[in-house]
């Protein structure tokens, strides 16, 4: 029998999620954005593709996919809607990672597996009012009280908070230990003392809901501490490269969306009886967008490849995220210039790209902190 090479998993994942984005997300993207609500129906539709389970091993119901494949998927989703890509990323990675790594069998059965099937929504709470880039400034305290942890404090900018069924929350257990005194805790939504604020009104990614959490004497079992004592930040660092590379992939998706509509419009729109694409200043914008997207693409998938080989890749992931998110912002800015006044109209998608791209600048580390990190990695600090 003849042997014929099969397509690669990467090609098939791209093709599948490209079609999903074109057929399911893009036609509804504006509607979801305008509604400003978590589109549970879309969350469930994505669940049917097994996306949330992509990164996890087969034995707990996962697909056993790698970082490259994961990045391809979220890149395609982000091309359709940054909101959708953002809550998908939360469910696939930050919201479930610590529960998978350090949760008990009961946690896995009751929460993780349903989350991977899209039956429960996961969330991840890191940021506080006074502790964002500076994680060590976290004031939310977890204090041991007999066979329970008692949690007090608050968290802000929590993606999926209004709709989540469980949270992975970073808390201080020992103020004297600095970063070593930080641990992750699993807190389920129905736990008494957990309060979720109204969702935030925000500029972009309007179909992901973000809110504040407040903890007032929240009592949780001892096994809800996820990971060895004092390992919270260390464990976070282990997936930081993945988070940044993934955010870079989200950025590429958005940049491509802005680029594709810019190309189309340059060929459609006429002024002075010529297609505007025939003007060199428009061509310059198109060329710059194409070049930067290509660069972001190479950096991002190189970083993903390194992670898949088991390398640390923190510098490369930081560079990719820094460059790709700035590329997305420049591309959506240039798109608005190509569209002229029409970009100012809510009728066109360009304004959504322009609003949504700002999200990429702080999720996964601001450009400023990333520059600091890259410089430090280069030995200059």
């Amino acid at each position, binding site marked *: 029998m003849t042997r014929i090479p099969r397509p690669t*998993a990467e090609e*098939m994942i791209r093709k599948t999620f490209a079609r999903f984005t074109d057929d399911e997300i893009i036609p509804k993207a504006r509607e979801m954005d305008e509604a400003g609500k978590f589109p549970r129906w879309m969350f469930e539709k994505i669940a049917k593709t097994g996306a949330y389970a992509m990164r996890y091993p087969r034995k707990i119901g996962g697909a056993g996919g790698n970082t490259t494949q994961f990045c391809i998927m979220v890149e395609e989703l982000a091309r359709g809607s940054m909101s959708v890509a953002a809550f998908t990323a939360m469910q696939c990675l930050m919201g479930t990672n610590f529960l998978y790594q350090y949760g008990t069998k009961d946690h896995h059965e009751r929460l993780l597996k349903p989350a991977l099937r899209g039956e429960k929504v996961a969330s991840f709470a890191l940021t506080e009012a006074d502790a964002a880039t500076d994680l060590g400034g976290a004031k939310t305290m977890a204090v041991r009280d007999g066979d329970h942890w008692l949690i007090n404090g608050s968290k802000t900018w929590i993606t999926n908070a209004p709709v989540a069924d469980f949270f992975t929350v970073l808390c201080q257990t020992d103020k004297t230990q600095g970063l070593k005194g930080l641990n992750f805790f699993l807190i389920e939504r129905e736990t008494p003392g957990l309060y979720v604020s109204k969702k935030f009104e925000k500029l972009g990614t309007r179909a992901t809901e973000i809110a504040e959490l407040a903890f007032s004497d929240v009592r949780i079992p001892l096994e809800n501490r996820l990971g060895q004592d004092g390992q919270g930040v260390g464990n976070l660092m282990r997936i930081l490269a993945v988070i940044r590379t993934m955010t870079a992939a989200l950025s590429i998706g958005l940049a491509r969306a802005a680029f594709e509509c810019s190309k189309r419009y340059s060929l459609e729109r006429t002024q002075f009886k010529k297609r505007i694409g025939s003007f060199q200043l428009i061509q310059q914008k198109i060329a710059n967008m194409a070049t930067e997207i290509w660069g972001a693409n190479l950096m991002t998938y190189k970083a993903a490849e390194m992670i898949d080989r088991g390398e640390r890749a923190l510098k490369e992931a930081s560079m990719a995220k820094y460059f790709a998110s700035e590329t997305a912002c420049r591309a959506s800015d240039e798109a608005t210039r190509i569209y002229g006044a029409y970009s100012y109209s809510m009728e066109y998608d360009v304004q959504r790209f322009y609003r949504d791209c700002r999200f990429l600048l702080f999720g996964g580390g601001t450009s400023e902190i990333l520059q600091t990190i890259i410089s430090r990695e280069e030995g200059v600090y």
Partner: protein
Amino acid sequence: MKLVVLIKQIPNTSNVRIDPKTGNLVREGVTSIMNPEDRHALEAALSIKDHFNAVVDVISMGPPQAIEVICEGLAMGADKGILLTDRAFAGADTWATSTALGNAIRKNGPFDLILAGRQAIDGDTAQIGPQIAEFLGIPQITCVSALELSDGKVVANRIIENGCERIETPLPALVTCLASLNEPRYPTVGRILDSVLESTPIEIWNAADIGVKAQEVGLAGSLTQVLKTFTPKGGRETQYLEGTPSDIASGIVQFFVDRQVRLGE
């Protein structure tokens, strides 16, 4: 229960065009996809499998790269794939295509139901389904918008001009499916990763494997030949109307008054 689904890889026709200068088919940027209605046929088979103890095989004929749609079929949930590929199959009309596919289905063994899309959007002939049913000597129901299986028979709604027939036929049978039949599932990530592994069964068959001679299939076995192809052109003289909306409205009315064509009751 054994279900066989016929799928075809086609160029995505929404972006096929011909270069007016060279007359070449512009292949750049043209992606290959699974024929949309075939996807609905596969979904119908998979939803039968969800409820009954059934095995689903997907069969496709095409160039070697058509293995992509076989993998996609497996990623959606099919159990086994068969790809018919051979230079001898090239240039086949529907007679020669149904000869090859019919023989392959026969070689694959007994079956209860064959499902296919009503038509492929690159050719739009809708002939392969009925021709295979005739080749195999089994009843057919085309243009199916609803499907039920029970006690060795199939009951289907067939959409006809201005209406719908409810038809019953004993198994084995062949049905061709419309898009309104169902909403196809997407491949799942886990199955995608499986489908590309050599351990997931895909059989590759050539003309000899299915027991046909090269003269019976492909262009040589075809009863029709394509004499020429050309790009259709409009051939109208377009008159542009400009000015204020009222000028344009009067212009349109005047156009038809001049041509003595009646507007309005």
